[in-house]
């Protein structure tokens, strides 16, 4: 059976959320809220209440980056300072901890930030091709509800969208 991508464009969040709520409540057998992708022009605080908590691994990237930055930073400085052994130290330590803390801190932040960005790019699947059903109206003022459904569910989903005053429906065969 062929699978389709279908997207309904709604004029506001109320209608879009109402459509998703019906999907959650199993109005169409075989279609669950896990299949839904919501496209919106703004970050809506209640999205997770409707779609369920989907989590984000970005903080883990951040933690790893910060730990890496601190470790690498301190080792980087120490390795550089270790070459100072050939110079007279004047009684000062070769690897001075107090002043190294400052630089280690800066590198902790630098790598924390860099890894956070990488985590975002990977997790959010950035730098990929736009979906064929992408609508420029989403970046303007409309809300898109997109699903991947079996052919037999295509018409019921369309009907559901229409019940909730959908403005436009787009569809394409999923590859």
């Amino acid at each position, binding site marked *: 059976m062929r699978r389709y991508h279908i997207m309904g464009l709604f004029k506001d969040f109320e209608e879009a*959320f109402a459509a998703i709520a019906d*999907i*959650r*409540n*199993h*109005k169409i057998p075989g*279609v*669950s*809220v896990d299949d839904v*992708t*919501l*496209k*919106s*022009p*703004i*970050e809506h605080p*209640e*999205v997770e*209440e*409707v779609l*369920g*908590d*989907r989590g*984000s691994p*970005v903080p883990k990237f*951040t933690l790893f980056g910060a730990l890496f930055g601190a470790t690498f930073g301190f080792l980087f*400085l120490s390795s*550089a300072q270790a*070459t100072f052994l050939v110079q007279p130290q004047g009684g000062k330590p070769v690897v*001075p901890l107090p*002043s*190294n803390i*400052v*630089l280690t801190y*800066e*590198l902790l*932040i*630098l790598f*924390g*930030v*860099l890894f*956070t*960005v990488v*985590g*975002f*790019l990977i*997790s*959010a*699947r*950035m*730098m990929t*091709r*736009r979906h064929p059903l*992408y609508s*420029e109206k*989403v*970046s*303007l*003022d409309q809300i*898109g509800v997109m699903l991947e459904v079996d052919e037999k569910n295509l018409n019921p989903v369309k009907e559901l969208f229409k019940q909730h005053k959908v403005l436009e429906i787009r569809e394409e065969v999923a590859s």
Partner: protein
Amino acid sequence: MQTKDINENIEWAKINADVLRSMENPRIGYWIAVATCIAMVSCAVVAEIYQYQTGIGVANLSWPQMWGLYIATFVFWIGMSHSGTLLSAILHIVHADWRKPIYRFAEAMTTFSLMTAGLFPIIHLGRVWNMYWVLPYVSDRGIWPNFRSPLSWDAFAITTYLTSSALFLFIGMIPDLAICRDNARGWRQKLYTVLSLGWQGDDRQWRHFRKIYLLMACFLIPLAVSVHSIVSADFSMSIMPGWHVTTFPPYFVAGALYSGCAAIITLFIILRYFFRFEEYMTIPILEKICKLTFAIAMVWSYLNLVEFAATWYGHDQVAKELLLWKFNGPYAPFFWTMLFCGSVMPFALAFEKLRRHLPTMFVVSLLLNLGMWLERWMIVGPTLSLSYEPFAWDINWPSMVQWAIVFGSFGWFGLLFLVFVKVFPSVSMYEVKEMVFHRRRAHRPDFAVELHRRATDPQPGRSPQPGQNPSTEGA
């Protein structure tokens, strides 16, 4: 009298249209400003070439006056960069949504201030061809970076701050770049397509976007404090009179926020006029920035008093002499102007009538920044003039070369900023939409209740997550 931050009934499509139009059709004043900035930069380039060919002596810099305006202005520009972090990161974390129409240009200001500040250590070297020496890389060629030196810390701190601020600015702009991509043609469309990184506004993208923005904000706040503390360490870790002061780090941070906020007022008024942003850069928002600036000005004034008192009641006779000399020596006119502009002038921000009068606020903000620039000069100049060794006492006035380069830096910053606001949206479209949406929603609590009811309904359609109780899922 306008009392609301923003008109809640403004349409989302209009927000897009207004901001996109601003990138195409600025007023004639914009082009005059661009031409002025180019002229200023040209003067600075000529002065720098002259200094490059002749030597640093033409800048009137020689022992004991080695630093002069270059380092004072470096500190000024570093300080200017802090307002973007303040407005963007701190106010984001505390959910002050009035920041939304104005934080973008403040963040751009941060990035361009840092780019301007970074030029000064290089210019100050004199031997520009050796500029890579300022980078404390691990050397195998006989160069020994002193990692104990605050000057080395500067390189790390500023590089980290510039990288993080630029990324923060860029990441926060991605949804807007996608809007630009969807509406642009020609070279702009190609540029925005690359920069928007394939943004589609999916819930997945927004979810991770929210996380990254919050995490970066959390990193940027301590980073900003550390950067200016480190810049203050350039001075305070020496034993020079007037510099060896424990209040320098908070004093520098307060001064940085102060000058940045004053600059935000200046740019706010300029952008509001050039790009017809009256609906977004509103008077109530300007009032809030003014109040914030006033509060920070009072902190700065207090820390000034603490510094004076600590010196007065301390045992460093030379530092006390220096303080008295600042009051009535050759630098006294600049010192008193600094105190007037920095500590007296902010009281203009305490009056509602004045806060709402744009021309007055424009002039006041310029005077505040003049005061803050003088503050940096009054830190550098007098101490180098009247140090511990009487044989090294020397009054120093900057030469035309120094003045030209300093004024040119303002032109450079202005030029970068003006190009930015022409190519990129200077008002965050998606955040203004959010702001409008939430304000409108605040009048309709029934929708939130209804949504919560729907969300907590039994959901046979959704498969439970591992370890999750299906009966409470989504609540």
